[in-house]
């Protein structure tokens, strides 16, 4: 009989057994080590092969050379990795990244938004041999080297076991609440801290003119509105001074031709605009029309005045 415990946080006391009726008083937050014991060694025709591995933010380079910097940019603490062997030499790799916070788990999930949404964890996507979701402070990835319906089914079952073990949900970044909801493309919101990641999603400049770093929260969102399309960037700084400096440098280097209200017509005939409210910098990177840019900034500033 295989026991899978439902992880709970702090004061919760509960465990469940898959395949039988079993109750036990236990309390623990999901840790990477506990995944090794809790997760099934066999999922349909896929069987655990090799030893589980745990990597930290330095040894991760030995494991995922090429992508490690993305995870480190979200404060990756450690990564649990398990390989499953399946029919005809196929393999499925489970990677569970423990991030600095639930917000960062959400953020790393938004790094690649290509795929079909799934009901798994707090948000999940599937694309061509890759399942991934986030829940609490964990980003979970299941990659398959051979695509098949049974492999998909197995990955899905494994994902459900991981999500069940994590148990609790985590909060999304507060900065998302500043986005006006009308026209917001919820499946295209990205959250990050790093200027390299901004340039990956929307190339802005070769210098970090917005002073993005691990202490700034930034979010990029797309709009499809009755007045046109738009791309909006919000940045929340740890203090007003840094926000003010970023505002000034953005105007200097990116919108030197802005009018007194911070609006400028770009070379591609779209409108860009910037506004500042306390620690929050709001930038309409491009909008099809000036009224749309005006509406977006007005809505964001109104929210900023209400949200602490």
């Amino acid at each position, binding site marked *: 009989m295989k026991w899978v415990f439902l992880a709970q946080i702090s004061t919760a006391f509960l465990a469940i057994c898959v395949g039988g009726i079993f109750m036990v008083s236990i309390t623990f937050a999901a840790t990477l080590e506990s995944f090794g014991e809790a997760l099934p060694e066999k999922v349909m025709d896929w069987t655990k092969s090799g030893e589980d591995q745990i990597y930290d933010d330095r040894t991760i380079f030995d494991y995922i050379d090429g*992508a490690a910097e993305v995870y480190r940019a979200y404060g990756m603490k450690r990564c649990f990795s398990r390989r499953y062997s399946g029919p005809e030499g196929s393999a499925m790799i489970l990677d569970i990244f423990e991030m600095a916070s639930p917000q960062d788990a959400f953020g790393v999930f938004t790094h690649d938004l290509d795929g079909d949404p799934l009901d798994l964890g707090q948000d999940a996507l599937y694309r061509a041999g890759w399942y991934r979701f986030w829940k609490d402070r964990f980003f979970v990835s299941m990659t398959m080297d051979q695509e098949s319906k049974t492999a998909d089914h197995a990955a899905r079952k494994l994902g459900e076991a991981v999500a069940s073990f994590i148990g609790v949900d985590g909060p999304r970044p507060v900065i998302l609440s500043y986005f006006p909801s009308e026209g917001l493309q919820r499946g295209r919101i990205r959250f990050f801290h790093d200027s390299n990641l901004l340039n990956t999603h929307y190339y802005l400049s070769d210098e970090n003119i917005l002073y993005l770093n691990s202490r700034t929260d930034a979010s990029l969102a797309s709009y499809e509105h009755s007045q046109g399309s738009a791309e909006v960037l919000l940045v929340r700084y740890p203090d007003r001074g840094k926000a003010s400096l970023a505002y000034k440098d953005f105007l200097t280097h990116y919108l030197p031709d802005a009018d007194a209200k911070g609006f400028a017509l770009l070379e591609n005939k779209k409108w860009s605009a910037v506004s500042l409210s306390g620690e929050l910098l709001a930038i309409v990177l491009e909008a099809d029309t000036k009224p749309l840019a005006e509406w977006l900034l007005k809505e964001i500033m109104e929210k900023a005045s209400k949200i602490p």
Partner: protein
Amino acid sequence: MADAKRVLTRRDFLRTGTCAAVGGLIGIPLLKPTVSRAVEQSRVVLVRNKDVLRSGANIRAEVLENMLDQAMCSLLDVPDAFSGWRRLFKPDDVVGVKSNVWYHLPTPGELEVAIEKRLVAAGVKGENISVDDRGVLRNDTFRNATALINTRPMRTHHWSGLGTLLKNYIMFTPRPSKYHGNACESLGALWQLPHVVGRTRLNILVMLTPHFHGVGPHSFSARYVWPYSGLIVSTDPVAADATGARIIQAKRNLFFGKESPISPPPHHIAVAGSRYGLGHSLPDRIELIKLGWKENLLI
């Protein structure tokens, strides 16, 4: 940030009517000081043979060796490959072959063996040849190298856009993260390190099964490799990488049915030319010689 400093922004690309990705890829319009090389054009040889791969990614070593020899003859205008290797390497050279061990798509062992055989044939002593990747800083041959050969497969890369020949030298620094800023734009600086500068005699970009789109933490999916069956050979790493990048870009556009810029833009290629003077990235500065199989050439 000093106001006086000229910052390159998206608007510079908009002004010239090209997108950031394309601008970063082909080297326009980089507004940094340009270091021009003495030669007008860099020669790049693209050689393909559809028989080099058996089913899957298994390599026919004899076909691969023949491709390498063909490339060498065309690259150096010599009647036989042996003459070419002897022109580039002397018997008293100590040669480090910088390979790549990334387990999804490593430098093929067959190619490493072929290179070693040709170096020995050119008179280089076997004990003065070493193939290495992650251990180059601890490898005595590399420490004492008078010459380097740089070889790796091309693939998409989360942080630099593409895993390139230029990026393959990241192992020559104990602090790789120092070169990660702005999509690794300063990778060319690696080539100026004292133990690297001026030593690279040959660059071989492996395009047998290039990887054109990254998926997941491992940045790899077998779905996004294809049997291009090629090698790109040049003494100019920038020109070789720029040529490979164009092929990857064309494959992405074809596969996804729309313009699908490599992301992040691999502008470290153009920057390596314009800022570090390592070669040419613009097509009109590259003399591209195409040999062998022409089907689905993509360039």
